[in-house]
């Protein structure tokens, strides 16, 4: 539990990469909706972080699920079969951070050009 006034969410959960689908299923069963999926590049620790923002539409509760993967092999299972809306969020996170969502039906660039192979929001990106 964290201070909502200071952080903007009620519950902060850190899970192993193979548990994000289980976390999504648990939140889905409890009536949560997916707000956003984004990434973070912890270049000093040589890790990538994936952040899932959930909210409860009726109970005013916000939950953040985080997971970390090594920068050399940034792979996380997709939650798009649990939340279909995660499809585009994961495509965006993939193109900007280079995080691969295993089992995603269509991991092509969403906002960047179709042939883009670079990941602009990585800390070591140079244009």
């Amino acid at each position, binding site marked *: 539990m964290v201070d909502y006034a200071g952080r903007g969410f009620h519950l902060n959960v850190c899970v192993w990469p193979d548990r994000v689908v289980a976390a999504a299923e648990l939140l889905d069963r409890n009536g949560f909706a997916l707000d956003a999926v984004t990434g973070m590049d912890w270049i000093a620790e040589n890790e990538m972080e994936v952040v899932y923002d959930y909210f409860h539409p009726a109970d005013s509760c916000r939950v953040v699920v985080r997971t970390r993967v090594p920068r050399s092999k940034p792979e996380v299972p997709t939650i798009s079969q649990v939340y279909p809306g995660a499809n585009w969020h994961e495509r965006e996170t993939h193109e900007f951070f280079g995080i691969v969502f295993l089992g995603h039906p269509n991991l092509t660039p969403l*906002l*960047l*050009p179709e042939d883009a192979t*670079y990941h*602009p929001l990585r800390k070591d*990106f*140079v*244009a």
Partner: protein
Amino acid sequence: MEPEKACSQDLSQIIKFAKLDELLDLSRANSLWPLTFGLACCAIEMMAAGASRFDLSRFGAEVFRPSPRQADVMIVAGTINKKMAPAVKTLYDQMLEPKWVIAMGNCAISGGPFVYPGQYAVIEGVDKLFPVDVFIPGCPPRPEALIEGILKLEEKLTGKRRWPTVTPQ
């Protein structure tokens, strides 16, 4: 007064001789048809220039055409990002000759505020895609500036200015 003499006097007032090229230039300059085409906030100013308060029709350039086949001036009003660039280039290629381009605002001139180390999304100036005739600075330029840009384009076509220059008091 003799009828013949009266006739010649009157005709000298209403008949002018010019080269066909000059007449064509004059008619083109006085009825520039812009392409209905906006990319960002500059397009809002372009719409304001076309609407009643600023009334671009006073200068013959109010007929915004929804098809590049009918337009002869492209006002690039806004940021061109890399994904949009092929579409903009296609529109330019589809316009018939003679055609002119006005780069409206800092984004169309040079990329504007989007130029920074590591930027990966924006074309830094529409002149990287095709030739530009008039650049209008501003972020965004006011409608008066766009009208001035169109007058500059007229000046480029005919070689002379049709309207007086406004100097700030």
